[in-house]
C-alpha cells in the first residue's frame, strides 16, 4: 500500500485485516520484522511549511531527509540533531525519510550538545491503529498544551501510530566548524578528556573516541579559534593535539562518526549502548568487542560483535540499555533488538500500545 494522502492512510489502516509494516524509505529495518503487508508513507511527501525566521519546518512524513536538509541549507539552517544515515551500516538502499528519522528518534553526534531528535520535535500528525487521524503539539517552539504525545510518538518505531506529518525546530548553521584531535588515548583518559571538554564553557558540539579523541567546535570564526586554543590548553596533558581547521574536512570526520563508518566492515552484529559516560571504559572491558566507537562523550557506545553473542548478559550490572541494531533474523529471534524493560515499564508500554493500536497491527512485535 502506498497511500498518497493522510485520509488514504487512515482508510488503509482502518480496513487492514492483519498486521501492517510501516515503511518510510526502508533504510532502517531495526527490530524484529513480522510477516505482514507493507504500508509505505513515501508518497506522502513534501515540505508543508518552512519559516526560517521562526526556526520551524513542517514536512509530510515521507519527505526525503535530503530534501529537507537542502531546503534548510539555502537559508543557512539545518537539523541540528544531525540524524544518522543508516544505509551503509545496515547495507540498505532507498531514500531516508523524515518520518523514519522521527519514528526511530535518530540523532547524531551533536545530540550530546543540543539534544536528540525528540528535543527538536514540535508537532505530529498521525493515524492510530484504528485509523483515526490525530494530532499533538503544533508548530511553535513552546507548547505545554495537554500531554506531550509528540515525544511519545517520536522513537515509538511506528508501533503507536503511522506518522503523516511532523514539525521540527531547526537551527542556524554556524559560520565555521573545526575538529580538535587528542591522539592515542586509553579509553579511561579519553572519557576523562571528553568529560573535561563537555564540562567546560567552550561549547563542544561533538565528542567521540576511536583511539583518538575528536572534539568539534562550531560558531563564528574568531570564537572557534578561541575555543580551540582554550581546549588545547585544558587537554594538552592528555596527549598530543592536532586540529582540522578546514570546515569541509571537519564535516567529513563527523559524518563518518555519525554513520558509524568504522564499524561497517566489522563483526556481524552491531550494538548500540547507552550508558553514563564514566561507565564506558569499564563496559569496553566487559564486552571485548571486535571494534568500537564512542560518541556522546562516551555515553554512546557502538560495538561490533560476533554473530549471536548476547552482549546484555555481559553488562548486567551497568545502568543503561543496549539495542541490537544490526543482526541476522536468526539472532534477532534469539536476542531481542530492544532492551528488555522492567515489568512495570513494560506493562505501561503494552497498555499504551493497546490504547493506540487495540488490534496490535502497527509494526507488530517490532519493539518487543
Amino acid at each position, binding site marked *: 500500500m502506498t497511500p498518497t494522502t493522510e485520509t488514504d492512510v487512515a482508510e488503509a489502516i482502518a480496513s487492514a485485516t492483519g498486521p501492517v509494516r510501516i515503511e518510510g524509505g526502508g533504510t532502517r529495518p531495526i527490530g524484529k520484522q513480522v510477516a505482514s503487508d507493507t504500508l509505505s508513507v513515501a508518497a506522502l511527501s513534501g515540505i508543508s511549511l518552512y*519559516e*526560517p*525566521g*521562526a*526556526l*520551524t519546518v513542517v514536512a509530510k512524513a515521507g519527505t526525503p531527509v535530503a530534501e529537507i536538509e537542502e531546503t534548510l541549507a539555502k537559508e543557512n539552517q539545518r537539523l541540528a540533531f544531525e540524524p544518522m544515515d543508516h544505509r551503509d551500516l545496515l547495507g540498505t538502499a532507498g531514500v531516508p525519510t523524515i518520518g523514519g528519522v522521527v519514528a526511530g528518534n535518530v*540523532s547524531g553526534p551533536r545530540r*550530546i550538545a543540543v*539534544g*536528540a531528535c*525528540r*528535543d527538536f520535535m514540535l508537532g505530529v500528525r498521525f493515524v492510530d491503529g484504528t485509523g*483515526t487521524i*490525530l*494530532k*499533538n503539539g*503544533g508548530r*511553535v*517552539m*513552546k*507548547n*505545554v*498544551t*495537554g*500531554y*506531550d504525545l*509528540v*515525544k*511519545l510518538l*517520536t*522513537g*515509538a518505531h511506528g508501533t*503507536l501510530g503511522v506518522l503523516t506529518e511532523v514539525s521540527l525546530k531547526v*537551527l*542556524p548553521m554556524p559560520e565555521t566548524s573545526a575538529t580538535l584531535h587528542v591522539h592515542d588515548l586509553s579509553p579511561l583518559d579519553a*572519557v*576523562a578528556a571528553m*568529560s573535561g571538554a*563537555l*564540562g567546560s*564553557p567552550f561549547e563542544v558540539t561533538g565528542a567521540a573516541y576511536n583511539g583518538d579523541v575528536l572534539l568539534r567546535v562550531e560558531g*563564528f570564526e574568531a*570564537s572557534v579559534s578561541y575555543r580551540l586554543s582554550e581546549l588545547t590548553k585544558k587537554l594538552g596533558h592528555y596527549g598530543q593535539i592536532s586540529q582540522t581547521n578546514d570546515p569541509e574536512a571537519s564535516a567529513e570526520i563527523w559524518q563518518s562518526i555519525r554513520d558509524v563508518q568504522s564499524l561497517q566492515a566489522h563483526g556481524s552484529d552491531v550494538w548500540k549502548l*547507552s550508558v*553514563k*559516560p*564514566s561507565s564506558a571504559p569499564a563496559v569496553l572491558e566487559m564486552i571485548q568487542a571486535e571494534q568500537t566507537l564512542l560518541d556522546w562523550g562516551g*555515553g554512546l557506545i557502538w560495538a561490533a560483535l560476533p554473530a549471536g553473542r548476547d552482549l546484555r548478559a555481559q553488562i548486567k550490572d551497568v545502568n*543503561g540499555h543496549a539495542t541490537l541494531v544490526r543482526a541476522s533474523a536468526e539472532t534477532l529471534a534469539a536476542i531481542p533488538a530492544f*532492551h528488555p*524493560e522492567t515489568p*512495570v*515499564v*513494560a506493562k*505501561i*508500554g503494552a497498555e*499504551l500500545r493497546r*490504547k*493506540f493500536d487495540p488490534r496490535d497491527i502497527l509494526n507488530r512485535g517490532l*519493539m518487543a
Partner: protein
Amino acid sequence: MEMPTPDPFVLAKKARVVARLRSVLPADAVISDDREVKAYECDALTAYKCPPMVAVLPSTTQEVSDVLRVCHEEGVPVVPRGSGTSLAGGALPTADCVILGVARMNDVLETNYPDRYIRVQTGRTNLSVTGAVEENDFFYAPDPSSQLACAIAGNIAMNSGGAHCLKYGVTTNNLMGVTMVMMDGEIVEIGGAHLDAGGLDLLGLICGSEGQLGVVTEATLRILHKPEGARPVLMAFNDNEVAGACVADIIKAGVLPVAIEFMDRLCIETTEAYAQAGYPDCHALLIVEVEGSDAEIDEQLSKITAIARKHDPVELRESKSAQESAAIWLGRKSAFGAIGQISDYMCLDGTIPVSSLPMVLKRIGELSDEYGLKVGNVFHAGDGNMHPLILYDANKDGDLELCEKMGADILRLCVEAGGCLTGEHGVGIEKRDLMFDQFTPQDLEAQMAVKDVFDPQWLLNPSKVFPLSASQSRRAPAIAAE
C-alpha cells in the same frame, strides 16, 4: 470556573482516611485541621480557592507510595503539590482531595560533574538546584522567573520554561530520569544518568502531564558548565511590528541569543515609573542577551546591533559591564511586580509563530479597546511565547469574568495564528475549557486514554487539563461505584 461537586462518600469518611494516613506517616506530616489545611487552598492563580480535605507532607518516596496506596484503596482524589506557584490552578485542591505536598523532600541525592547530572528529590526549589552546583561553576539551565520558590516537582509537571530556553530548552530537554509513584503506590524508575531511555519515551510523556500520571519524587537533571560571561543589548523601537521583524532577522542571521525579551509601551511606562530602569521613551523594547567570552560577546552583539540598525531603532544600548547589564534587565525583571502595583492582572501564556507577532499584537490592541480592559505585553519573543497581562479590578463586580472572557479570546487568537493555548504555565483549570479550541474530541480522547493507562480510576488531579464535560464519564464511575 466550574469545579466538580465534591464526592460526598469521600467527605463522609474523612476520619477514616486521616487515621489511615496517620498510620503510614509521622504525626506532623498529616494536616487535617480545617484552619491548617487552608494554607493549601490555592496556588498562584489566587482567584480560585478551595481548602482540601487533608494535606500530607511525606519525606520519602516510600512514604509517598504508602499515601497513594491508602488513597487508592479509599478512592480519594489526590492533588500533588510542589511549591504552589502554578499560574494555571494546577495545584488547586478540591474539597474532597488529599493534597500531597513534596516540600519536605528537598535533598540532593547525587552530584556527578564528569557525567554532568544532579539527582534531587523533587521538592527542592529550582534555584537551589543551581545553588548546589554553583561552587563548581555549573548550573541547571531552565530558569522560570519563579525559580526562587518553585519546585522541580512543579517544573516537571508543567514542563516549565525560562528566560534562557531559546538556547537551553525547557524542562523536558534537561530532564534525564525520574522516580515516580503511580496512583496505586507502585514505584517506577524511568530514564537515569544515561541518555535516551530505551523503549517508549515515557519520560517525555510524564514531563508536562500536570500531576495526572504519577507523583514524581526524584529527578535526574542535566547540569552544564556556566558560560564565561553574558551581556545584553537593549533595543528601542517606535513600532511593535518593526521590533517583531527585527527578532525574525536576528534569528535568520544565524546568531542564537540565549534570550530575546519583548516589552510594549504599557509595560515600559509602568516599569519605568516603578523601577526607574532608565529605559528610553519608545513603543517596543527588545532585550537580547548573548553568551561567551568577552570577545565572543562583543562579536555577537555587533552582529545583532548591525541588524537592529537596519530597522531604524530609537536607541541601541549595548552593555559593557555587569552594572550596565543589571540596569538593562532591571525593568524586565520588575515588569510583573510593576504592573501588580497599579492593578490586578491576569497573566496569559499563549504561544504564536514569531512571524504572526505583529498581527497578534495588533489584534490584542483591538480586543483591549472592545473590552475596555488594558493589556500589557512582556514576553519571550525568540520563541513566540507571549504573556499578555490583562489589567482588571478584582473589587469591581463582573470585571474578573470580563477579563477571563477577553483572555479566552486572546488564547483563541493564538491558536488561530498557528500557536497554542499555553507555552509554559500549563492548562490546569485555567485553560481547561478551551482545549476544544485547539484539539478535536479524538485528539483529547487519545490524551485521556494515556491517563487511563497510568491512573485508571482518575484519582490523580482529575479535574484539570481536560474540559470537565470531556472527562466526566471517566471521573464519574469513581463516585458511582461507592
